């Protein structure tokens, strides 16, 4: 595909770009990777839902599903998915820190500080979940 199909709706203009326009600049590639992270996150969540469903079917079904996830293909996929999930978190915290204006009295809290607070909260929440699942 080289050109975008012409839009049918009047009043909407779409520039004709090749489907690979985002390969032109590193920033565009990073943008596309950020958007693509949602696909990997969604696939993991579906896998996770199936995992819970199999747990409901009994211990054997759950163990069998863990066996499936142990295959090299799934492990490789989830390593990549984890990298994308982390990329989403980092880009999300950096972005929301800029978008979300936090005020302290008269002064605006610098976005870097807001981002830092998000990172700290992220680490604390992750550790709490880790401990809860491991010990409960």
């Amino acid at each position: 595909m080289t050109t975008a199909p012409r839009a049918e709706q009047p009043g909407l203009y779409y520039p004709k770009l090749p489907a690979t326009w985002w390969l032109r600049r590193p920033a565009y590639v990073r943008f596309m990777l950020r958007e693509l992270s949602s696909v990997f996150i969604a696939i993991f969540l579906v896998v996770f839902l199936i995992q819970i469903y199999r747990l409901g079917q009994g211990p054997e079904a759950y163990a069998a599903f863990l066996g499936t996830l142990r295959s090299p293909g799934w492990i490789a996929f989830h390593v990549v998915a984890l990298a994308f999930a982390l990329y989403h978190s980092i880009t999300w915290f950096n972005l929301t820190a800029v978008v979300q204006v936090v005020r302290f009295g008269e002064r605006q809290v610098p976005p870097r500080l807001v981002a830092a607070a998000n990172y700290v909260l992220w680490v604390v929440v992750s550790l709490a979940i880790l401990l809860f699942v491991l010990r409960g």
Partner: protein
Amino acid sequence: MSSRKTSEPFWWGLFSVGGVVAAFLVPVHLFLHALAAPLGWIPASPARMQALVGHPLVKVYLFVLIALPLYHWAHRFRFILEDVGLHALRTPIAVLCYGSAVVGTVLTLWVLLSI
């Protein structure tokens, strides 16, 4: 067209909340359930996991964790498809993406309530 325009903030709100949930909660759960548990790094016995999932508050938590980021995916994936040039299919793409997220929400609810 007008109905789609007015529903935009609704989907964007779900996208935004889903993005927050995904940013804070998904990495640790992905590591735990998709890597550490299958590889045997953590004790994830079925009895222990069943006891966890059986708790009503955990179910509510899991619903938020699984369902909301689906809307985040739907919104982003919709615009990925548009950005690579599928503008002519704007409406069917939107219906398919958000529709998938709604189906995912119903399935999540069903799985969590039946366990």
